[in-house]
């Protein structure tokens, strides 16, 4: 479907953002009483809540790895999170997202400290508006820290994309629907390693380089928000 709306005009995007500008992000940690670690995140119109349980003995037993813990991320969209009601339960899309998020998070955790265990990361999308996998992974990073899990880094995600020939950061809803490419990535901000990378659409090699660069910069900006949310919460409750 082609739209008549102009996604990019006079250096500004539909919602008034500059090409390299993020949507508003709000992060709160320790929001649930039952979970061992939790995080609530709003990113533009996205609302995501994450709960971490574990490390605990992996069940069923055949999923256990005798050398390290497994990460079970479970990305789930609430039925009311999208314009047309989504049928409850996992579908192929959410299973795939769960898998790539699990793999990305696993890289940052000292998994070898917990053989046979699982670390369960439940990501619930309460409201979706483009970029839920980045929002979910970013919130999961914070929730893992909040659960006291030993980690070598706090993973963070952000996307870049292309609209009307212009490379932009953090696609909004219309940009996601009518844009020509989307490149969500997750990085380990301390080392700069890429932990997740997906791309769909059409980009030239040069455009990809610009987009990747922009997404990495975006990740670093989001990473600062993540860190601030954790430190502020615990400096307030524990440090003073």
């Amino acid at each position: 479907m082609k739209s008549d709306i102009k996604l990019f005009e006079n250096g500004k995007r539909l919602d008034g953002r500059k090409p390299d500008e993020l949507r508003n992000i709000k992060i709160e940690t320790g929001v649930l009483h039952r979970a061992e670690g939790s995080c609530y995140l709003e990113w533009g119109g996205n609302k995501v809540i994450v709960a971490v349980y574990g490390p605990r003995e992996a069940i069923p037993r055949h999923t256990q790895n005798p050398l390290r813990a497994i990460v079970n991320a479970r990305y789930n969209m609430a039925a009311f999170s999208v314009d047309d009601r989504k049928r409850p339960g996992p579908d192929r899309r959410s299973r795939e997202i769960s898998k790539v998020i699990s793999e990305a998070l696993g890289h940052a955790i000292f998994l070898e400290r917990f053989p046979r265990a699982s670390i369960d990361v439940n990501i619930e999308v309460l409201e979706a508006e483009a970029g839920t996998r980045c929002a979910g992974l970013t919130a999961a990073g914070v929730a893992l820290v909040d659960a006291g899990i030993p980690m070598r880094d706090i993973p963070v995600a952000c996307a870049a994309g292309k609209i009307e020939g212009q490379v932009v950061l953090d696609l909004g809803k219309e940009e996601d629907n009518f844009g020509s490419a989307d490149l969500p990535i997750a990085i380990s901000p301390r080392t700069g390693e890429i932990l997740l990378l997906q791309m769909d659409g059409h980009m030239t090699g040069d455009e990809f380089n610009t987009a990747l660069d922009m997404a990495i910069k975006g990740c670093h900006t989001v990473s600062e928000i993540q860190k601030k949310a954790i430190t502020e919460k615990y400096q307030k409750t524990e440090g003073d």
Partner: protein
Amino acid sequence: MTDEKREIVIPSQLLGETKDKRAGDGTFVEDGKIYSSLLGVLNIRQQFINVVPLKGRYEPSERDFVIGIVDIPMSSSWLVDINAPYPALLHVNEVPWDVEFGETEKYLNNGDCIMAKVLQVDQEKKLQITLNDRNLYKIKGGLLIDVEPSKVPRIIGKKGSMISLLKQYTKCRIFVGQNGRVWIDGDEQGIKKVIDTIKQIERESLSYGLTSKIEEMLKKEFKDV
């Protein structure tokens, strides 16, 4: 008493270099740099950089005293939840009773609480506990509360100073498991006071001079009664 802040650190935060300092608990080293691996409080002692965790699961060590809750009685052992990532095994040879094969339920059943000692933690983190030591037994009466395992040392205090204070003023029996479970028994008002005070210690675990502050408070309250 100083009121200086303690520094909260988070995973990946750079804490120092191995040429100046040594990497202690809650840290890791890459390329000569020492980073935090945990959400915790920075603690630099002599040449060591440590991070004391604020949260997280209990990681069992051999000889820890813990409070367990029996999960499943099996034919010659019990599976016991000790608040660790893994259940612990209590073998019939490790209890002070002569248990006939298949009669484990007669001695300990699902939901029963025990004071136990961690006997073994192997490579795969398979855990074994024992009741064969002094002061280990099945718990009767009282109640259990959960605290952050990382805060157990504060609740016990230096050489048990904090816990002695609590026992002295509230006349309660208290046992603090290394695994973040605390057993309390006594009269109802005493139990309540112990719970409130422990919650306060947990909340203010990082402030300096906490033991004397708690003592003042207990002294005042129990004089009024």
